[in-house]
């Protein structure tokens, strides 16, 4: 804890914490995506998996015990990440001060420029997404436990589906820069292997992107049907 | 004017050691009671300020730069000499001493030079400990290269940025003391006068370059490390701001100015490209290790270099000086280059250069090796000229580069004004009439780290410990003079710019007091300079006001001083009726065109006493004895 505090005190430390929390979410996304893909294997397997998530760790843990612990953990990571993003960003904005009249941005990277607003979009998405898929508050026909049905019904609506897809674009870009940036921030730098950091980030970003949108796309296309 | 060199007795090899023992020490508790003023944050100034602070004195250091790290030392490229004999090629303290005295054409003080050679060894240790990343061999040990005028490899280097790395070492040591509170750094402050009370240096008057404020600062001792004045020629390899102001103002307050005319012309700089040329860029002399210098045999031959066949090229240095060839000392190489150009063999669009060719070296060692050794210099050259030196030979020409002259100092680096110490290029240095490559850094660092901190301590030991103040009338008077001077410059409001006059002066000096001097030329210059000065004070335009950042005003003040100082240079060159080292009087040459010394008549240091602007200064002499090096005519054949 004292060490985390020590990090939290410096701008670089904040970034390191962002990298760690970002990485946690990155890990979650991979798992989450893999889980989602089970939708292609049909309702039983998908619901079975969704159910498994809830009873995970029983009987040692009460029902949903693991799930809540996990949710708490993910929420913490998210809040820390977002909070630090806000802190570092506002520090940078005030540091920049006056803008340049003519700015020809050297090595302009769309992705790195969009980290902040893309991030905010992710925030909005996640909020909506949980109300949508987990609590069902914004879901047309939500039924506790019927994960598969909820998924399909939820993404039938083209507007909702396209919002998902746009959000995934944000996630994709966020990771494209984020994963590479993460290596840099955590000082994972090596004479020989550094060259592979970029490609790795690209692959990861694409895998996550394609993996995720495959669901709403194929639901719209009727490939994944009730 | 009293000139006592205070050289300790005893055999030369033991003088410094003995002197160190004989010098008085200030007890640690009392050091804090002494305030020392250091002017300059180059190698000499930064090293001195850092060390004095470390020793416990209260130090105030001044620079007109925005940061201590900008000092002109940063530009030194080639390297720094030290008698480490890591190469086992027969180097030794005595050989470095010998080479330096000989290279200086027997116009330097033996005892100082020997001490310098002795200390050179500690410099490298100090620098490496500070983290200066000198070039290394694959074994992990330090690498060396050979440098002009020496037959051993004793030059340590950090790529082509040796001065930068050494200065950063000093700068970091200095900033550390600043952080510790022992040193107070005043950047963007230009020292415009020295305050002398009853013949003793008591402080300085500065101008805050941002607010324009004129302030006094008092100290128990004042150390000037303000660098060289090659910019008197307008075009030189020095940084644009280099100037003579601090040392000249000290001279006007009674400090003797020694050998002012001894200026070194560097053989390898890039020739001017046009009238707008603002400064000359040096191509490190180390290039001469692998480059071969030549001109077309036929005068006026305007063919591209690569179209001129071997047999029609004249590798004149190799022809004249078989044993040293392209590594012949600077003054010789420079003069020969000028000779070739004057005879019409000049190359390049303006026919104002000679070739420095790497073709053979690249064939012999391969491009990678050359790139490894000189990569950044080649890049620099290409940026400036747009030509690729790997493909076509470089064009080079001599340029004013270093000033051996400076304020006279005794063995303790103290001028004839008690309490006024002078370090680095600003003093009349240990280089006699000509400086060997890679020995100025050596001198700056040695003065700053190892000599001045001890000798100043020895001086302070006898100075009463009362706190210093700026109450004395002399401070007020000096401040008033400084303000008045600025106001006068701003008031002229004429039609010409400061540079107009600087360029005009530069031409006069280059033609009459440059690489070659003659009685007629010098007398002519002595007639012209006062006339230029007149016009300067009646026709110059200095826009803006005195109470803001005003770069025109800064320049004007410096040029005004050059306009006074130039005269003393010419007097010195005129009165020294012999040739020696860089001082080449056309009346005194050997049959094969070498400098011809007159040891019976001129084996002394010329020390000039200021008598008033436009007045003929008075010459004092410090005789030079040579007990350890045989007086001989330099021969690099």
């Amino acid at each position: 804890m004292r060490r985390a505090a020590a990090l939290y005190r410096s701008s670089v430390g904040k970034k390191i914490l962002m990298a760690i929390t970002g990485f946690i979410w990155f890990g979650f996304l991979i798992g989450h995506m893999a889980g989602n893909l089970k939708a292609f294997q049909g309702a039983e397997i998908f619901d079975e998996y969704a159910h498994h998530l809830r009873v995970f760790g029983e009987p040692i843990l009460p029902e949903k015990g693991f799930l809540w612990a996990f949710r708490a953990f993910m929420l913490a990571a998210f809040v820390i990440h977002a909070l630090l993003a806000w802190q570092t960003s506002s520090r940078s904005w005030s540091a920049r001060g006056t803008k340049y009249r003519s700015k020809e941005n050297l090595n302009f990277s769309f992705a790195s420029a969009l980290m902040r607003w893309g991030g905010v979009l992710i925030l909005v998405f996640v909020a909506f997404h949980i109300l949508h898929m987990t609590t069902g508050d914004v879901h047309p026909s939500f039924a506790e436990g019927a994960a598969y049905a909820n998924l399909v019904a939820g993404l039938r609506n083209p507007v909702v589906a396209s919002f998902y897809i746009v959000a995934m674009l944000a996630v994709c870009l966020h990771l494209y820069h984020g994963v590479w940036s993460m290596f840099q921030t955590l000082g994972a730098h090596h004479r020989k292997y550094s060259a592979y950091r970029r490609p790795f980030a690209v692959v990861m970003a694409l895998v996550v992107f394609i993996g995720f949108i495959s669901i709403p796309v194929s639901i719209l296309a009727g490939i994944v049907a009730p | 004017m009293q000139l006592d060199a205070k050289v300790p007795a005893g055999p030369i090899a033991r003088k410094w050691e003995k002197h160190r023992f004989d010098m008085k020490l200030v007890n640690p508790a009392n050091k804090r009671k002494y305030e020392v003023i250091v002017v300059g944050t180059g190698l000499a100034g930064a090293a001195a300020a850092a060390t004095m602070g470390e020793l416990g004195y209260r130090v105030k250091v001044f620079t007109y730069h925005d940061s201590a790290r900008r000092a002109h030392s940063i530009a030194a490229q080639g390297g720094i000499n030290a008698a480490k004999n890591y190469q086992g090629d027969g180097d030794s303290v005595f050989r470095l001493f010998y080479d330096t005295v000989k290279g200086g054409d027997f116009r330097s003080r033996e005892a100082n030079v020997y001490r310098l050679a002795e200390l050179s060894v500690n410099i490298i240790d100090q620098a490496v400990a500070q983290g200066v990343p000198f070039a290394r061999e694959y074994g992990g040990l330090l690498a060396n290269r050979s440098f002009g005028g020496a037959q051993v490899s004793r030059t340590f280097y950090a790529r082509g940025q040796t001065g930068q790395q050494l200065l950063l070492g000093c700068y970091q040591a200095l900033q550390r003391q600043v952080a510790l509170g022992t040193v107070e750094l005043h950047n963007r402050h230009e020292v415009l006068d020295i305050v002398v009370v009853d013949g003793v240096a008591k402080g300085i008057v500065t101008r805050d370059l941002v607010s324009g404020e004129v302030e006094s600062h008092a100290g128990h001792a004042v150390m000037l490390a303000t660098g060289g004045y090659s910019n008197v020629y307008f075009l030189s390899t020095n940084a644009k701001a280099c100037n003579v102001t601090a040392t000249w103002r000290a001279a006007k307050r009674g400090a003797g100015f020694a050998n002012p005319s001894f200026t070194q012309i560097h053989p390898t700089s890039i020739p001017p490209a046009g009238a707008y040329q603002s400064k000359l860029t040096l191509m490190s002399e180390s290039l001469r290790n692998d480059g071969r210098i030549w001109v077309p045999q036929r005068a006026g031959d305007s063919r591209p270099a690569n179209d001129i066949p071997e047999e029609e090229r004249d590798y004149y240095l190799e022809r004249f000086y078989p044993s040293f060839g392209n590594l012949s000392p600077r003054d010789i190489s420079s003069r020969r280059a000028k000779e070739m150009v004057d005879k019409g063999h000049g190359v390049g669009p303006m026919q104002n250069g000679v070739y420095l060719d790497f073709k053979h070296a690249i064939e012999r060692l391969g491009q990678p090796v050359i790139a490894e050794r000189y990569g950044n210099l080649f890049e620099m050259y290409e940026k400036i000229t747009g030509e690729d030196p790997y493909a076509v030979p470089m064009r080079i020409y001599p340029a004013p580069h270093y000033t051996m002259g400076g304020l006279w100092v005794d063995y303790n680096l103290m001028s004839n004004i008690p309490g006024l110490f002078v370090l680095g290029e600003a003093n009349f240095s240990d280089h006699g009439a000509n400086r060997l490559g890679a020995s100025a850094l050596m001198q700056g660092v040695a003065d700053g780290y190892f000599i001045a901190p001890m000798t100043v301590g020895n001086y302070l030991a006898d100075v009463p410990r009362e706190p210093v103040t700026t109450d004395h009338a002399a401070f007020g008077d000096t401040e008033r003079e400084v303000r008045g001077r600025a106001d006068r410059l701003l008031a002229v409001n004429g039609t010409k710019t400061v540079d107009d006059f600087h360029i005009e002066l530069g031409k006069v000096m280059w033609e009459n007091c440059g690489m070659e001097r003659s009685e007629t030329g010098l007398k002519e210059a002595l007639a012209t300079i006062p006339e230029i000065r007149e016009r300067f004070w009646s026709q110059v335009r200095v826009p803006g006001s005195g109470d803001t950042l005003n770069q025109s005003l800064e320049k004007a003040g410096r040029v005004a001083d050059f306009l006074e100082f130039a005269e003393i240079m010419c007097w010195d060159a005129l009165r020294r009726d012999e040739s020696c080292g860089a001082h080449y009087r056309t009346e005194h040459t050997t049959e094969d065109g070498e400098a011809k010394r007159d040891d019976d008549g001129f084996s002394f240091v010329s020390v000039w006493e200021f008598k008033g602007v436009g007045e003929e200064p008075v010459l004092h002499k410090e005789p030079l004895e040579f007990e350890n090096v045989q007086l001989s005519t330099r021969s690099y054949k």
Partner: protein
Amino acid sequence: MNLTLHVWRQDGPEVRGRFETYQADDISEHASFLEMLDLVNERLTRDGEEPIAFEHDCREGICGTCGMMINGVPHGPSSMTATCQLHMRLFKDGDHIWIEPWRASAFPLIRDLVVDRGSLDRIINAGGYISVRTGSAQDANAVPIRKQDADLSMDAASCIGCGACVAVCPNASAMLFTAAKVSHLGLLPQGQPERYTRVVDMIAQHDEEGFGSCTNHGACQEACPKGISVDFIARLNRDLLVGSWKAAGD
């Protein structure tokens, strides 16, 4: 060639600044960018106007004094080049050139194109050195250093402290400058004892000075006249991680 300059003029920190337009006529392609400005200033002076204030000294790309935004690029269009080494052959007749000072809250403007970069010195004060008493050093060859390390250290050490990295960074972060010094010293055996305290203290000062927080944007590396690599930033981050770890540990 003939050029039109749009130069930022500001008489002092408090007063408002503005762009002024100047003609720079028949400029030789062999002239340097600063020589071009010299010519403009000479003319302004003759016309009784105040010349443009800009900083420069060595004009060899080594002292780090010069520096201005030229058409939105620090030190102008040619890479690995300081403003003073920029030559006019890179411009075309009739070009419009926008010239602005370095902009960053940690670089307060003094006048026209002159800014105060003292914040970089203060980062060095915080630990950018090796503590060694004068005269106390052991023989220079006592500790051999792998050539690769010495060379890499030299790469980092070649930073000239110009501030272009800050000027271009979207976050106005001085991370490249700081990383260069941390790496220069941290790569050498002599720099080991203070290695971790150094980085923690220097970053603390970096933040104190009001520089922004790096998001690995990478523009600094492009802008750097010495081509200092962002790999050094990774190195700094790692050292800081270890550093805060140790610091908090004891």
